[in-house]
């Protein structure tokens, strides 16, 4: 009896030692320092068939964050059993790399496949080719909030990121461009002139609400889409300023009432503005505003004068690809 008892006690001790051994390596340093530290990445073991997207879905609960895992591990193919690090926070704020900084291209489209032959028109075929190019080359279409977070130095963007915007509320965009964006899983920001919605050949509020539910961002392009730099003949400067403020305020309120959410992004009508209009937009509660000057955006750019490159029928797919080639601009004096 006593020998059995001794054997039992021996097995119990062994079990306890094993259990403590299991837990020890993770806890041994836990009490070293009580100072708050950034969360460490999660070390996991890849399973058969794992991709950055499946890992992101499993550990970050968001498959679209697969790029973070790929960039953190500096690879996108994982073999079963391989050690993979899951980052718990942004690790390249502001897109700062040792060789320079990331700049984000913002594209602006006009009418897609409309009847008019305006300069900014683009055929649905060309638009589809460009969206396909983005999808094939692994570009991630951003929301304006992601761009704002990036510019606030609190967020990180994938290396291949693009913000797709459209200055239109036309029915042809809804019918010709939106299905293409859906097909390639891309999102876009549509800047609408609130006063034009529901008119002939334009989208209805129901359609805009549907786009909003689907994840498209809806921004404001003033009430009538007319340049805010225009001043009527004989109009005083004060009356002109009141018109600008009212044009922006009414459009913002109308969109917010229809969508039930704050409208935070403005595209200056006709892409033109000045310091007073920018300040007025900021005062009215817009988080960012976009013009139509070409160029891409570093994190420290003016949030109320974000440049957008106009894409029209004159741009061939090869040029488009060149425009979108991710680049690390600037020599950081190293």
């Amino acid at each position, binding site marked *: 009896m006593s020998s059995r008892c001794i054997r039992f006690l021996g097995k119990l001790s062994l079990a306890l030692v094993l259990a403590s051994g299991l837990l020890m*390596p993770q806890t041994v340093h836990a009490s070293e320092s009580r100072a708050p530290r950034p969360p460490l990445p999660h070390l996991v073991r890849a399973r058969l068939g794992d991709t950055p997207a499946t890992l992101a879905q499993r550990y970050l609960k968001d498959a679209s964050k697969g790029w973070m895992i790929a960039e953190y591990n500096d690879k996108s193919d994982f073999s079963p059993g391989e050690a993979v*690090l899951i980052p718990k926070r942004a*690790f390249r704020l502001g897109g700062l*790399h040792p060789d*320079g900084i990331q700049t984000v291209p913002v594209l602006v489209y006009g009418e897609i496949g409309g009847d008019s032959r305006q300069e900014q028109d683009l055929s649905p075929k060309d638009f589809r080719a460009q969206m396909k190019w983005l999808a094939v080359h692994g570009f991630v279409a951003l929301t304006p909030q992601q761009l704002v977070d990036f510019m606030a130095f609190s967020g990180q963007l994938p290396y291949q990121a693009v913000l797709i915007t459209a200055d239109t509320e036309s029915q042809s965009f809804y019918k010709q461009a939106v299905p293409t964006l859906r097909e390639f899983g891309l999102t876009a920001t549509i800047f609408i002139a609130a006063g034009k919605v529901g008119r002939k050949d334009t989208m209805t509020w129901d359609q805009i609400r549907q786009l909003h539910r689907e994840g498209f961002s809806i921004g404001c392009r003033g009430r009538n889409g007319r340049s805010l730099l225009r*001043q009527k003949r004989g109009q005083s400067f004060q009356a002109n300023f009141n018109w600008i403020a009212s044009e922006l305020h009414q459009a913002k309120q109308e969109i917010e009432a229809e969508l039930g959410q704050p409208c935070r992004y403005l595209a200056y009508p006709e892409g033109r503005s000045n310091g007073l209009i920018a300040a007025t937009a900021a005062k009215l509660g817009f988080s960012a505003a976009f013009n139509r000057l070409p160029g891409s955006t570093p994190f420290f750019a003016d949030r109320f004068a974000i440049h957008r490159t106009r894409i029209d029928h004159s741009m061939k797919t090869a040029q488009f690809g060149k425009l979108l080639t991710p680049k690390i601009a*600037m020599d950081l*004096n190293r």
Partner: protein
Amino acid sequence: MKPLEAALAGIVLLCLCGCAGSFEPVSSFFRSGPWWQAAQADELRVRARKWEARNELGMAIEHWRLVQRITADGGEAGREISRLQKTIADAAKTHYQKGITALGKNKSVAARNYFLAALQVNPGYEPALKQIRRRFSPFPFTVYQCVAGDRPATVADKMLGDRQMAFIVTWFNHLPEDRDLTPGSVLILPKWKGTAPPKPREKQAPNWLAEARNRLAENDLEGALAVAREADASDPDVQELIHTLHLRLAAQRIDALELAEAGKFLAAVPDGFEGKQELAADLVATRQHKAVERDLGRARELFDQGLYAQSLDQSEALLNRVPDSRHAAELAAESRYRLALDHYDHQRYLSARAVLVDMEIGHAAGAALKETVHARLIDLAQFHYRNGVKHFINEDLQKAIAEWETALACDPNHAKARENIANARRLQQKLEALP
């Protein structure tokens, strides 16, 4: 006692379940738990050093922290973390100081880049972020602190250059227009010099040249060119900037081996413009280099397909054009060796020897094959020599001469074969001369 042990095992298992939360994490715990994690420490050390080599010190530190967590012995990781923390702190401070110095010299682009470099090594370095925000990240507002006697009109006069702009001061600060302002209170105002109201239908001409130069300073060449094209093309400064941009774009395209594009940009620059001649020479050299690379690629393809004769021809043709191409020489030697080996394997020893005549001296396998082929040909020469003798004994001079000629072909130094051929031919002539 056995039921008791089983119960104990169950308790231990339940404890582990409790630690982990559910059965899925339990399986994960056993699959990739602390044992497995500890075994990854070496891999993480390698990754940490790789990030450090790339100058991504923050990433390197995170990896070392992870190593420290998963291993019982955190001594090495602790030392690395301390070292990297010091490196980061020193680098951020140095970059920041250089930025401040550059600001003092009015070199704003250089200053901005130093501050960005400080933030790159340490994103939490607040002084650098503040400098970037304050000096390089425009925001549409400015602030004004009121002094005694201030009213909206006086503030508008001081800040916007026109008393009539008082309505702007009141609108932005929700103030009545005629109120005295409390000294010390802070007003927000648009960062806009509204000295005069914009006139109707009068466009404010943007300073395209300055904007283009800013883009150039940021290395945004396409953007700078697009903006510069909006500027007055008759302005010599604009023309010079456009030519400079064309040159820079051409150089960029040459680096990217997009030579057709580079040629277009270069063609847009007038002859004699500083830097064009050098870049044109560079383009020609790059084109040649690219042609060589292309031909070498084709030769390699042929080699990979086992077409060694064609691969040899291509690489030798390339060597004639570019005698100092090491890759072409290596490919030619390897093609020659493989071709000779192919002949040897198919018992075409004479062909193998012909190919190996020009074999490079330094090619060890080729030299060995050359010796083997030579030895085989000597043996063959002897074989054919003996056959010739047999035919001679049987008085078949024609066949004997043929065999000795084959022997001589195999071994040109075979003196007896040469001598016998001469003797046999003389004998043949005598026999033919007999009536």
